[in-house]
């Protein structure tokens, strides 16, 4: 019988050999930091009543979105989850239009119809955040089929969480993608909790990647807080997909620092010690340390980067605040396309 802790021949990516141009490495840090600062701002503005509904923060998981998207081309397509800001930013979304959408404004990506859970930019291959857990997996598999039929070497990436990996569409789509050899990456962001419920209490095996064996595709476990490890795993899977090898399943072990949503007074049943331990494995601090050690960034460089990001975000907030709300009548626009 297979050992549940080392089942079915999955690969564990350990090495940290970036082998990437310094500019690209610094850009990865800039993106991760942008995601974090964007969400800190979104959270503050949400609590101040300027952003409505619900906001799910990705803080602590930034290395996954950036590690994967840095292995993609602009024409490749991704789909996100309810926790979607990080994927948008990593795929190159415009911060002004993102912030305006959170602010419910006419200039937002969805003209104020979507909010935090539904930001999409089809122009950059970002097929949308999605409010239904596992809801996007089949849709982006359709993007994988489209890429295959287009025959231009494009790939499609499904980001989803450990919770979604227990839902039917995950299994149905892995089977179809494997059968049709679709150019897909299925990237599980295993942050160990589906809202309040621990993966340990809902998963038969601790590694989601082990399920790849059931569909005859590569399954990889990677440290989701190590952006280079994620990038390396994604790069290998992208090469595999582009060369007609079909889909891969990459499981990124990571952790959500904040509660499930930013709503005040929300229960968070996780142990404080666990949260603190993961904060010590901060993916951004890890990358900063690596870049410093390699001599590719110094204090001055970091300060400049930080200043630029904050300025960009201030500009995004100013853009959102200066933008008009949609007119009430626009509620009936776009129910149907012409």
């Amino acid at each position, binding site marked *: 019988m297979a050992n549940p802790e080392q089942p079915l021949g999955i690969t564990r990516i350990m090495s940290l050999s970036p082998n990437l141009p310094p500019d690209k490495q610094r850009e990865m840090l800039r993106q991760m930091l942008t995601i974090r600062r964007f969400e800190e701002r979104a959270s503050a503005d949400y609590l101040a009543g300027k952003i409505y509904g619900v906001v799910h923060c990705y803080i602590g998981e930034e290395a996954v979105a950036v590690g994967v998207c840095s292995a993609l081309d602009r024409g490749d397509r991704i789909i996100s989850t309810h926790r979607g800001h990080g994927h948008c930013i990593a795929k190159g979304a415009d911060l002004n239009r993102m912030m305006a959408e959170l602010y419910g404004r006419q200039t937002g990506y969805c003209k*104020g119809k979507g909010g935090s859970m539904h930001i999409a930019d089809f122009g950059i291959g970002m*097929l949308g955040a999605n409010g239904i857990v596992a809801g996007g997996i089949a849709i982006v598999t359709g993007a994988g*089929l489209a890429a295959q039929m287009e025959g231009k070497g494009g790939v499609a990436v499904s980001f989803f969480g450990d919770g979604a990996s227990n839902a039917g569409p995950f299994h149905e789509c892995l089977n179809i993608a494997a059968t049709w050899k679709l150019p897909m990456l299925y990237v599980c962001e295993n942050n160990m909790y589906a809202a309040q419920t621990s993966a340990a209490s809902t998963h038969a095996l601790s590694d989601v990647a082990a399920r790849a064996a059931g569909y005859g595709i590569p399954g990889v476990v990677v440290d989701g807080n190590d952006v280079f490890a994620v990038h390396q795993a994604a790069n290998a899977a992208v090469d595999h997909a582009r060369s007609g090898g079909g889909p891969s399943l990459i499981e990124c072990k990571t952790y959500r620092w904040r509660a499930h949503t930013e709503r005040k007074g929300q229960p968070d049943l996780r142990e404080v010690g666990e949260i603190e331990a993961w904060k010590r494995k901060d993916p951004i601090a890890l990358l900063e340390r690596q870049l410093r050690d390699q001599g590719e960034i110094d204090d001055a460089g970091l300060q400049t980067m930080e200043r630029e990001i904050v300025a960009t975000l201030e500009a995004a907030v100013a853009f959102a605040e200066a933008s008009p709300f949609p007119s009430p009548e626009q509620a009936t626009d776009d129910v149907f396309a012409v």
Partner: protein
Amino acid sequence: MRELTYNEAAVEAVAEEMRRDPKIFYMSTDPIGPLLKEFGSERVRATPITEAAFTGIAIGAAGCGFRPIADWRQVTFCFVAMDQIVNQAAKIHYMFGGQVTFPILFRASVGGGGQVAAQHSQSPYSMFMNVAGLKMFLASTPHDIKGLLKTAIRDNNPVISFESSRLLTRKGPVPEDDYSIPLGKADVKREGSDVTVVALAWLVHEALAAAEQLAQEGISVEIVDPRTLVPLDRQTIRRSVQKTGRLVIADEAGPTAGFSAEVAAVATEDPATFARLKAPVKRVCALQVPIPYSPVLENHVFPDRKRIVEGIREVLRERRAADAA
């Protein structure tokens, strides 16, 4: 004019459109033979039995510029794909601010009469009518299904073609020239002056038989076939009821919150139409039960021409209290 069955007309519509537009491809758990033969397994894809997955795949491919057709076969099988239909397909264009279109044709057979019991005898279109963002139709003739399917395939929205299982092998005239029928346009299948019957699919034919019978007694029945459920042609329904002053609605589905209830509201909430109603609106629907297997039970549950005749006689007998006083 040549005659085709309802099913042949539908397949012909799909084949003609697939010849016209290489972006169209077809997915179903069992490919349709003639389509597979002509277009091959890349464009006519046999899927695993995963309606949820291939419905979502259709949405994604549509958002990337393709024009997929997802054939659920029987409507009962699409219930496992309700998340993709209701949460995704219906809302995705709106929710994302209309930035791209999602042209998808979904196909599903509906109706009963085949002695296949509750799960395989369903007419749940009103459930879908209740979801904003989906267009849908239910054709009653080979001519109509071909013309409506061609329009639906060219539409830039998710459109559901509900197809009557009772009518699949029924023949009717289908022109050989290229034609299409717009969505949202009802068809007056028979003109009359005493009572309007709004009927769908198989019940259009039952209503025509009822009208023929009543004509011998001097009763003139007008039959309106809405054809499209969303968007519904309210104007044609109201115009007919304003003319006849009486309305019977015949539907193979149950009455509760159903298509028939919607048509009743279309007639009664319009002041001009309400003012001309001479009798209460009558619905002739299936009983509100799961459809049973035994023919004795099944026949009891479904409306037919006899019940339509009874319904017409009832509205001719009844008068509004205000008029009677």
